């Protein structure tokens, strides 16, 4: 009967069965929807494939063509420049905004919860809705943005219709969505021991000195985390440009992000092999960015 001691062989066998059974659905799912696709992405990137007729092995041709054949893929490098510029502008924009917001909120005695809530609202809003709203806000003649600038006596540009302005306009939207950075910075600020400031005050340090000597250095792990995740997210920007510009990618394709380019090639033109190669390039880039950023920052803190 059931006189088995806990820890006995019987129980270990039952645990082994239970453990495998509990994890089986998730692992099967991971196999089918992560591991198999990961292998397939790599495989298809070496083939010519339109998703209808069988894939044909072409070796490195896709990589060579997307990287160097500007007749076949005239916009590949353009999409990389657009994406890089977007990352370069949007990440600092949202981080600086988020930090200022967090710093100010942390000063308050009342109303912290309110500001936290309101400033986070833009983050939980669907990308499609964000794009739809901002398309209307940026309307050159009837939009709220230019109406506001008009009050200040400034004649606003056609934000989404002028090639050089499109990416800065996107970065402004990113600054509007600074809630994530605000929230994480706020957590970081609250983690700084109060005694540091007290000691600085005793030494006669003013607020700016405290900011520069204590707050900012101690927030470096937080900033680092936000930069890494922010850059990785920026490299994959898609929804907002797709809803704003559709397949046109904006004036002179100035809103052609890397993933939009990939999407247009894969799904509109059916060049799945090339699109797979672009996916692999993206994956490697994200990996390199992560590794590089971990290398650049000395590992002096344990996060």
């Amino acid at each position: 009967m059931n006189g088995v001691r806990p820890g006995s062989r019987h129980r270990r066998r039952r645990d082994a069965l239970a453990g495998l059974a509990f994890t089986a659905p998730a692992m099967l799912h991971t196999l089918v929807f992560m591991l198999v696709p990961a292998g397939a992405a790599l495989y298809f990137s070496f083939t010519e494939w339109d998703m209808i007729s069988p894939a044909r092995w072409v070796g490195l041709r896709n990589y060579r063509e997307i990287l160097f054949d500007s007749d076949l893929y005239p916009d590949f490098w353009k999409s990389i420049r657009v994406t890089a510029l977007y990352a370069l502008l949007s990440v600092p924009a949202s981080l600086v905004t988020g930090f200022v917001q967090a710093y100010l909120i942390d000063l308050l005695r009342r109303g912290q919860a309110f500001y936290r809530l309101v400033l986070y609202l833009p983050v939980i809003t669907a990308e499609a809705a964000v794009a739809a709203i901002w398309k209307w806000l940026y309307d050159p003649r009837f939009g709220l943005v230019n109406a506001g600038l008009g009050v200040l006596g400034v004649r606003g540009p056609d934000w989404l219709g002028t090639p050089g302005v499109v990416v800065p306009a996107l970065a402004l939207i990113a600054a509007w969505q600074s809630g994530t950075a605000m929230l994480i910075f706020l957590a970081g600020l609250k983690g700084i021991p109060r005694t540091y400031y007290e000691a600085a005050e005793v030494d006669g340090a003013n607020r700016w000195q405290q900011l520069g000597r204590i707050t900012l250095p101690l927030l470096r792990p937080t900033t680092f985390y936000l930069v890494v995740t922010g850059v990785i997210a920026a490299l994959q920007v898609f929804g907002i440009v797709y809803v704003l510009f559709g397949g046109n990618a904006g004036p002179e394709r100035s809103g052609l992000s890397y993933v939009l380019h990939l999407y247009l090639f894969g799904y509109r033109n059916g060049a799945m092999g090339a699109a797979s190669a672009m996916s692999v390039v993206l994956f490697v880039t994200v990996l390199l960015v992560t590794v590089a950023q971990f290398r650049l920052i000395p590992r002096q803190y344990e996060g």
Partner: protein
Amino acid sequence: MSAAKTVDAGAPAVVPAPSADAGTRTPVRRRRRRRNAPIPLRLTAHVLLIGGAVVALAPFVWMVATSFKQPQDVFTPTPHLLPTDARTGQWAGTFANYLQVLDLGGFAVALLNSVIVAVVLIPGKLLLDALAAYAFARIPFPGRNALFLVVLATIMVPGIALLIPKVFVTQELGMGDSLTGVIVPSLVSAFDIFLLRQFFLTLPGELEEAATIDGAGRLRIFWSVALPLAKPALAVVTITSFIFHWNELLWPLVILSDQDKYTLPLALQALAAGRVAQPHLVMAGAVIAVMPVVGIFLVFQRRILDGIQLTGLKS
């Protein structure tokens, strides 16, 4: 993307502390006694933050305002906040945009589709993720570490890089162009498994021991002991998953082509892409798409914000 876990130097990387009663407000982070900033500084901070709050909210206000305007009152040289007649200045607000969008714009169908996806996907996902997380945390079994390592590795992979073969696999399984195809590939989230595992690790072992002595099997313990205790963590996963999937554009976009299967973000995208600018309709559609998430956010704001603060955000 999902990301590493914690930022708060001191705090452990877990979701709110286990509390038997999820209803009462437990002060999750102990509030450190604050150093009071001088009053002029606090006032300045308030003024600046009110400015920031206005900027954050203005687009939403403008969205709602536009959604109630009649087409001829939308394009005015100076913006009018309230829906008034452009010539007479009389009140001219209307619900017609909403009715038109729901009916002709397909938003009624899209709303239903989005609800179906959420209602099937979220509970299914919670169950599968929690089962795996529980086993990884509490059941010793051969291969556990290796399997968990696989899960961790997949967190690092940018989802977009796998998009094309994932579409292919989904279609091969006969789920192309269907809500099933939207739901099933999202049923497991490595990040949520990781999160829930961290939570299950914190549960005291005595409860399980007691249940075992009472003759309960692992499934029984999972269902009747562990899951009820995990309510705070499950709540965070539920809410963040709901927001994420309700808003998701890219996956439904690549898997669906039939307009009758569109979810709300897709319907909104299609509406916004129209050749003629119809801000009054697009904004009505945006309100429909945004409202459920905003509502849930307002109700559960504390839990959501604390949860995100402690775990970092999957975005």
